[in-house]
Structures are given as C-alpha cells and as structure tokens.
C-alpha cells in the first residue's frame, strides 16, 4: 500500500516543476488538492473496517454497561464509574503489550506458532497475571483515595478491590488464550500479527473486560 501511494504522489506532482504561468499554477494546485484527497480516501477506506470492528465491540460493551443491574451498581457502588476508564485502558496496555511481544516472538522465530506450553509463552502469561494483580489493587486503592480527596462518597475498599480482582483474574485467564489462538491462526494464514493485534485487543478486550466487570459486580453484590 505504501508503494502505491508513493507512485501516485511522485508521478502527478513532480517536486522540481517550475511554475511560470498562471494556468500552470492553478493546474498545479488542483493536482495537489486531488492528490491530497486521494491519499485521504485511501486512508479512510483502509481504516474503516478496523474502526467498525472496534465500534461493534464498543457497542456490545456499552450495552452491558447500560443494562439495568449495572446502571444500579453505578449508583450504589460509588467508585465503579471512576474505575471504568482505567480498567478499560488497563486491558489495552497489558494485553496490547502481550500481543506485541508474541507478534515479535513469532517474527523472530522465538515463539513457534504451535499450541504447546513454550517457555516464552509462559513468561508472557505470567507477566500479564502479575500486572493484572498489581493494577487491581492499585486502581481500587487509588479510587478510594481520590474520592476521599474530592470529598465524594466512596464504596469500601474491599468492595472495589473484590470487583477489580475477580474481573481482572477472569480477564487474565481468557485474554491470553484468545490472543494466542487468533495470532497463531492468523500467522499460519500469512497475516501480520502486528496488524491483527490492535483490533483483537480492542474488540475482545472490550467485550470480555466489561462482561467480566458485570459478572464481578453481580457476584460482589450477592456476597457482600
């Protein structure tokens, strides 16, 4: 795709063209506008499918958030809405990095695209688990502190940390399996895992991340 763009640009707008007549100038400008628009159109066409996939994932996640019991929980558990963006970013940061490492490992041949319990994969899984546990405690603790600083009511730390731990652990078990499966299958079909990684993490991360948050909220609501 890069090659095609380079060709269009260099063929239609020679950089060294000397503009002498008014006719030439206006022709030159209309060439420039046409080129700009054609690059823009191509970027639009290439990016739309990925953004539509993310829209699908986002809308499913949003529908889980808009469900009645979840909406009630936002009212009865102050701090839940506060944690939401951080929890959504968290899975992108943890599993985005994880996918990028697997992609690099596949390209370098350090990870074999076979479903075996390889050393490299174990390391990647373990890192995701440790990061998840750390962030579950960190996000819940920070939320209580922030709410207190803002003088707003806060749910007990135990409630918030139970939610982040349950949701985080379920995520840490599911996401690696999904990522490895889809990246390996894509790799076997000749798709670049670096390109697959982003849309997979965004879409699956949204659906499972928010889905598990829902499960965690219901469980904590029943138990506590």
């Amino acid at each position: 795709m890069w090659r095609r763009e380079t060709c269009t640009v260099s063929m239609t707008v020679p950089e060294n063209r000397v503009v002498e007549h008014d006719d030439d100038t206006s022709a030159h400008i209309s060439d420039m506008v046409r080129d700009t628009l054609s690059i823009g159109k191509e970027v639009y066409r290439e990016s739309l499918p990925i953004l539509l996939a993310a829209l699908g994932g986002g809308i499913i996640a949003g529908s889980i958030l808009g469900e009645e019991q979840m909406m009630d929980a936002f009212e009865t558990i102050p701090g839940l809405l506060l944690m939401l963006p951080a929890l959504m970013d968290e899975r992108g940061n943890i599993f985005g990095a994880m996918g990028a490492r697997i992609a690099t490992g596949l390209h370098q041949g350090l990870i074999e695209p076979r479903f075996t319990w390889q050393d490299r994969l174990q390391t990647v899984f373990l890192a995701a688990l440790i990061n998840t546990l750390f962030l579950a405690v960190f996000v819940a603790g920070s939320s209580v502190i922030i709410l207190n600083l803002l003088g707003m009511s806060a749910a007990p730390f135990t409630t918030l940390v139970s939610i982040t731990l349950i949701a985080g652990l379920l995520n840490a078990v599911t996401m690696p399996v999904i990522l490895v499966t889809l990246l390996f299958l894509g790799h076997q079909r000749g798709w670049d895992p670096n390109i697959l990684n982003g849309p997979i993490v965004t879409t699956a991360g949204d659906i499972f991340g928010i889905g598990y948050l829902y499960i965690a909220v219901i469980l904590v609501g029943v138990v506590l």
Partner: protein
Amino acid sequence: MIPLLALMALIGLGAGSILETYAEQFIENPALIIMIPVVIDMGGNLGAILASRLSTGLHVGQMAPRFRDRYAAAHSIAVIALALTISAAMGVLAHLIGNVFGAGTLTLGRTLLVAITAGGLLSFVVIAVGIGATILSYRQGYDPDDTAIPVVTTACDILGIIILTGTALLLL
C-alpha cells in the same frame, strides 16, 4: 512496565473522576453510558492510526517534519471523515439499544447531535495531538513509533471522556 502501568492507570482514573462527578447525567441517559466504551476506543484507535501512519510517512520520506504538510493534511481529512462516520453510527446504535433498556429519555435527534458533536470535536483533538506529538518527537530525534503512539493513545482516551461529558452537559 509496572511504573508505566501505574501512570497510565492514574491518567485513566483522572478521566474516571470526571465520569463519577457527573454520574447523574450518565445514569439518567443509558445512551450516554453506551457511548463511553465506543468513544474511548474511537479516540485511541484514530490516534494510533494517525500517529503510526505519519510516523511511517516520516521514516520513508513521504512527509516532511513540519506542520503545513500535504501528507498530514490528507490524513487529517481522513480522520475527520472517519470520526464523523463512526460517531453517527454510534449515535444511532446507542439510541436504539438505549430504548431497549427503557428509560430512553433522549430522542434520536438529541443522541445523534451529542454523538456527532463529540466525534467531530474528538477528531480535531486527535489531529492536533497526533500530528503535534509525531512531528515534535521526530524533530527531537526520538522514533515516533516508540514515543508518539503511547502518548497519543493515552491522551486520546482521556480526552474522549472529557469531550463526551462536556458535550452532554452543554447540549442536554
């Protein structure tokens, strides 16, 4: 990795405290809650696409490291068009699903107005942050692939929430 994750989490919590402060607005309108994940994704994805394409453009010489550049202009037009397309679709879907959950106090027109305004504003912010971070890091001698993309993605996540909340407060 842990200090970076903690920093990102703190930024996310900053966005969250805005949501929590205006919680009532969101709880009254399910359509707004449904838009939260979409807006976070849209900002981050558009920012990531823009920054990584411009970064490659700089590396292969299709783009010059200055702000008035045709290649950057072409990408800005694409980002605006993409944001408007996605946010219009988001508005319609959020309205339909919000009505399924009952309590749909917002009309389709209102929901679309909020969605498209927020999407349009977000695209301008994505362009400013995306082009700014990419060109500035390139000029400083850093590879924008390593520096600009995380900055742009994180910034666009939090800015998406601020813009959605602000738009809803102003228009509803």
